[in-house]
């Protein structure tokens, strides 16, 4: 819960940052309401913080930590995490990291403005980035955040491995739990080198070492490698839990068993392993040896296969179902529809040839927002609307939910489809104003940028519906029964909200998680803990 609210608060901040710099891009060099004039330095800080916050302090805490903390004990039929104290510690460290990051807005020189990738030497020398304190704070915050999620992730993994209800076999574990655990493991295995690298960068900043300083035997390229060795698996760290949430919702609202549960699992594993060998596709033109680029181009297209297969399985799950288009289901379906776009546009960038041109253009921005928005926004809304009854014991208002849904999703597409075009036309990232570039100042592109900005305003304004719905329902929503969606998984067998210790007496599991529409039963669903 704490994670959820912290994450939402950070999301609001991240959204505000996005609003400010989109305003700057849409209406260059004008006074932005609620912020003021956007100077180049401020602009850099804005984009940097937007990226960092949205990934490290929104996507990860909500998708992994919030849902993990809430769902894992409930869904595996345990009364708590295996190590509640470690769990609390991990949250405290996380909160600290968030505060450190926010503090960097206030220090002299302002927040760090060297992009969320924080490449040295720019990030290493105050003389270059002009925000020495901000840079160090950013680094410390990220390091703390990593520690928090190492602890949390390991705790999730152990809990799921050891504390399952009697009778729950590997393949009876609900998909979302599998995905969260898998994500934790991927994170654990990929973050290490970057933690070491972050310490080195911190020394470069504060103790005048030369780990990344080319003039003193260091190598800036090293950081890029370390960063992306973590940074690419990170994409799947947030993707997999989102996929898991969507899987749950699809099964429940299509009243269907997941199509090929095991295959889904294997593809997830394959993705996890492959994600460790694709990172350099972020660096095709970054000065790595051109021959390496070919290898990474191959692996990158390889990883498209398990992901594509996964999406096919999701779509196939709908076949033969009886689909109820409640708000959570709308979000889940929107996830698939939008994520497909994000996935296929990735091919352009994974193919080294086109990446030469598209690298670091708005095409990239549009691409990864088409993956990250479904992950961090759409699937999160799906999850919240789906588990809200269980979390707070009240139902959300479906009408408000649907208004919010349509407003958000349509606006989202209007934001980012123009950016595909501006990117293809050569708009580069992180440029605060295109006044210097004749080719980018043609009216057509200017209008596209403005369109996208306006759409962002629309999207943000529609979030008001969500907030109203969320907080209004906390008090006045109709009371939720134990199992409002007629779902099979264990969390729905306890009253909403679950009491302390979750289960009156701990359940025993008899079957897999998705037994819907079995012929010859009076109900169309068969809970996991029902003896017969």
């Amino acid at each position, binding site marked *: 819960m704490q994670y959820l609210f912290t994450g939402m608060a950070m999301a609001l901040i991240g959204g505000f940052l996005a609003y400010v710099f989109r305003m700057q891009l849409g209406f260059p060099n004008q006074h932005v309401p609620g912020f003021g004039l956007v100077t180049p330095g401020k602009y850099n800080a804005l984009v940097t913080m937007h990226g960092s916050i949205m990934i490290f302090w929104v996507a990860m805490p909500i998708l992994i930590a919030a849902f993990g903390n809430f769902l894992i004990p409930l869904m595996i039929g345990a009364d708590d995490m295996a*190590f509640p104290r470690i769990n609390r510690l991990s949250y405290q460290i996380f909160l600290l990291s968030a505060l450190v990051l926010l503090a960097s807005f206030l220090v002299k020189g302002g927040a760090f403005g060297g992009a969320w990738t924080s490449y040295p030497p720019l990030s290493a020398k105050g003389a270059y980035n002009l925000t020495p304190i901000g840079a160090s704070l950013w680094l410390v915050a990220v390091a703390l955040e990593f520690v928090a999620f190492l602890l949390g992730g390991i705790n999730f993994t152990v809990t799921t491995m050891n504390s399952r209800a009697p009778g729950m076999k590997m393949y009876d574990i609900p998909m979302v739990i599998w995905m969260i655990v898998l994500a934790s493991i991927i994170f654990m295995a990929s973050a290490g080198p970057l933690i070491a690298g972050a310490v080195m960068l911190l020394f470069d900043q504060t103790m005048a070492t030369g780990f990344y300083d080319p003039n003193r035997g260091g190598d800036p390229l090293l950081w890029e490698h370390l960063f992306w060795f973590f940074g690419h698996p990170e994409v799947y760290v947030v993707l997999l839990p989102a996929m898991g949430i969507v899987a749950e919702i699809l099964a429940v609202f299509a009243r269907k068993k997941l199509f090929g549960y095991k295959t889904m699992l294997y593809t997830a594993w394959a993705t996890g392993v492959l994600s460790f060998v694709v990172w350099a596709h972020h660096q095709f033109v970054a000065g790595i040896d051109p021959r390496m680029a070919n290898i990474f181009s191959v692996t990158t297209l390889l990883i498209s296969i398990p992901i594509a297969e996964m999406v096919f399985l999701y779509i196939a799950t709908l076949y033969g179902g009886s689909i109820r288009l409640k708000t959570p289901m709308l979000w889940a379906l929107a996830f698939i529809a939008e994520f497909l776009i994000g996935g296929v546009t990735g091919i352009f960038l994974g193919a080294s040839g086109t990446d030469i041109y598209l690298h670091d253009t708005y095409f990239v921005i549009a691409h990864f927002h088409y993956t990250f928005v479904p992950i961090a926004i759409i699937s999160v809304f799906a999850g919240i609307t789906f588990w809200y009854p269980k979390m707070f014991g009240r139902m959300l208002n479906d009408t408000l939910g649907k208004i919010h849904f349509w407003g958000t999703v349509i606006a989202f597409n209007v934001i980012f489809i123009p950016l595909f075009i501006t990117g293809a036309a050569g708009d580069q990232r992180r440029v605060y104003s295109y006044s210097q570039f004749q080719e980018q100042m043609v009216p057509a592109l200017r209008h596209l940028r403005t369109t996208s900005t306006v759409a962002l305003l629309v999207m943000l304004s529609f979030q008001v519906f969500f907030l109203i719905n969320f907080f209004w329902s906390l008090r006045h929503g109709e009371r939720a029964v134990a199992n409002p969606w007629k779902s099979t998984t264990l969390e729905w067998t306890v009253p909403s909200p679950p009491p302390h210790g979750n289960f009156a007496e701990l359940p025993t599991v008899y079957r897999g998680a998705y037994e819907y529409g079995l012929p010859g039963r009076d109900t169309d669903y068969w809970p996991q803990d029902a003896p017969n």
Partner: protein
Amino acid sequence: MSTAAAKPIANTRSATGIPSAKLITWWVIASEIVIFGGLLVIYIMHRLGHPEWGAEAAHTNTLAGALNTFVLLTSSLCAVLAHKAADAHDGPRAAKLLRFTALGGLIFLCIKGFEWTTDIHEGFVLSSGGFWSYYYTIAGLHGLHVLAGMIIMLIVAADAAKNQELQRVECIGLYWHFVDIVWIFLFPLLYIAR
């Protein structure tokens, strides 16, 4: 077990057959492997790329390194003997051995401190060149792990003396052995290799 009542059932379950405490230790070790592994991989590739570092490595005090290895090996022995004692439900003995282990850690840190002071007196500090940066960073990170291990170990020993939480004796032992193994590799990497 007196404190067991306070624990959630989740903590006492063991679907894998490995008790949770030991399982989490293994996972922690796995993540530590990645952290130290990453750092060492970086160091090795720089070392191979920079033959001139060999000359600077010559300044490190091989004898002190060897002595430290010996100390750590001995403390590891104490740790594993403590585990044996714990299996025999002999809490006090386990506690005694654990305290010996922690003492070993202390000696290790003292030797390291002496070594670093001499290095610094010779004018080799964190920022005086590639090799020294890595030398202090890696050894420092390892030293931190030793320190953390010692603290946890003393806490565990305090419980063990009262015959409580004996399963933790093995876990801290595992961690300590891992720290030992890391040093076993650091010793040739930082001291011997020229």
